[in-house]
């Protein structure tokens, strides 16, 4: 099956993708995401988008967390 990679923000709320690449992110944030198990190859789900262009809610390994859109756009995912 052909897979295309795009920014995490392009996912439809509720759908998942597998992380292809994380680039250009603030190192502190990237470490914290790694602590939560967000790394290349991991399946991530976009749960919802917050108010006033606010943070988006994500789910990874059953853990819910939120990060800002700007940072979320640095996560590239593969959707099949």
């Amino acid at each position: 099956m052909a897979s295309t990679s795009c920014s995490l923000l392009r996912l439809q709320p509720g759908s998942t993708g597998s992380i292809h690449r994380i680039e250009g992110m603030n190192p502190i944030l990237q470490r914290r995401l790694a602590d939560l198990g967000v790394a290349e190859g991991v399946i991530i789900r976009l749960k919802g988008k917050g108010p006033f262009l606010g943070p988006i809610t994500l789910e990874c390994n059953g853990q819910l967390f939120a990060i800002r859109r700007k940072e979320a756009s640095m996560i590239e995912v593969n959707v099949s």
Partner: protein
Amino acid sequence: MSSIALVGNPNTGKTSLFNTLTSSYEYVGNWAGVTVEKKVGSLKNGAGKLIDLPGIYSLHPLSRDEGVAAQYLIEESPEALINIVDASQLERNLLLTLQLLEYGKPTLLGLNMIDVAKARGIHVNAEILQAHLGITVLPLVARTGKGTGQVLSILEKSSAIPPVTFKLFYGEVVEEAISSIIKELQHTPGLPTLRWVALQLLEQNPVILQFLKTRVDTSRLLTICAACQSELQIKKLALTLPQWIRSTRMDYIRSLCDAALDTTAQKPHNLTERLDSLLTHRFLGLPLFIVFMYALFKTTFDWVGGPLSDLVDGLISGPISDGTVSMLQYLGASNFTHALIVDGIIGGVGGVLVFVPQIFILFLIISFLEDSGYMARVCLLMDSTMERMGLNGKAFIPFIIGFGCNVPAIMAARSIEQPKDRMLTTLLMPLMSCSARLPVYLLFAAVFFPERQATAVLSMYVMGIVFALILCKVFSKYLFKNESSIFIIELPPYRLPQIKTLSRSTWEKGKGFLRKAGTIILAGSVIIWLMSYAGPGGFDVAMDNSFLAKFGGMIAPLLEPLGFGTWQAGSTLVPGFLAKEVVVSTMNIIYHAPDSAGLESQISQVFTPLSSISFMAFILLYIPCLATVGVIKKETASWKWTFFSMGYSVVLAYSVSLIIFQGGKLLGWS
């Protein structure tokens, strides 16, 4: 005496377990970062000390609370560890477990929240975990206390917990580097397990490097690390050493989870999903939060708190006061003693105790927010606003705690990752209207805005938040380097707080208030009363000739433009610095009010609605109390910032009250 440390990821229930295993009580809540300090308690069976540490994801700290935990493991040497893991989040939790096993101390694995895991259809096989990791694995529900008896009985003889034999193979390249580092460090005394030290060093953990620097010459160690990393790169195994170590661990954890976890029946968090779709809705979320807040205030001040408070008032001004008077007469007490006890102590302390119901309801509400999991969602909702102001949404957790008391709130700011954000949160905290300021609003709202008490009080809180946001923008623009803030927050599953937890945590917060009533408020009342009783002309002078009046009179002219330039108002402000509650105590003493109704009628003669708003705003903003100043100094470790926080609030309070009063007058209000 042996000491055993509780270690685990944030929000996995370490403190809940700590509270059941020891007879102490520490603060619990449903968000990551509740515990920010190491706490020590004695085990119930007297087998030793238990140490509760802030939650950590790895031994490589990002925020200050995590630093506390990492530091503890490196510098002190607990006899054994209890590693608490969240059974519904096993994969993520085990990453820390592996590092703890490498630490080499006897370890127990507490498999917590098996009830949550079961409800989500996740089955964890404790036997398989036990067999693979080589340590005792105990299923637990720390919140209800299930399984904790077994932990206690194992801890009874902590020396009998078998040593850890677990060893993960990191590939030849890394293993070689590990042995060279161990060889280098062999003769250095006072180090934890050398293999663990070596691995942490290879992982570039700054805490361990700092620690080693004080003992040995680290240049050779760093050369080994660098060589190892370049070998990994040449062999195209990984880009960096930490990455390699991490992925080796993750591979192991995945295979372990495949064996020990049965997730075939896994279901999503139904309740959490449904609540989140409403509470964090992109348009409805924020309005809902405001509606909740208003409803809560309405309950606290109009529906429940008010009537209860009247009951307490009746009790103090009636039976207690009368009983004391007749007892004093029976004992033949002197006029001085009589006046001291009735006017000073009952007037001063009693005048504050009247507000106990409202304050406890406020604490109950805060405890509910903390324990339900909603708190983290509020941060999410507020982030875009906070980002525009130069801070991040996570600061809202300390802010909400600050409505109870600023002191623990400033401590809570430790879990914020970036130093700049942490500093801003600390500096702005005094603008969060704490429970000690509540009696002032309640008193004035009852006199001047009897129909709209909840609105009047709520607007004071909102005013505090608005000024905090404005100053946040100003401070972050002019005082700090313009580093952008980051935001990430874990959203724990919602849960219905247990009555037991709620009442306990409300009581613990309220206890502080009662203790204050018995100490600083009591002392303040006695001093204020003495100053009002004595004057240059001797004892028992008319109040207008007392030392208090002289002293208040010196400040009064400064307050004239603000609308409350009386010596009475002036003399409440200085003792208010000790504890804000003393403002109301002082008023009770000055106005000789037998009960709240008496005080209210006195106040309505001295203040106008406009000057009362100006006074409330001044009390809200004018200065952090003594205890808050102490904690600001401790957390910022700087007198400069401490004085800054006091200075800006005085200036702000004066300007705001001036604008309110003079502006209001221009508009023709009175």
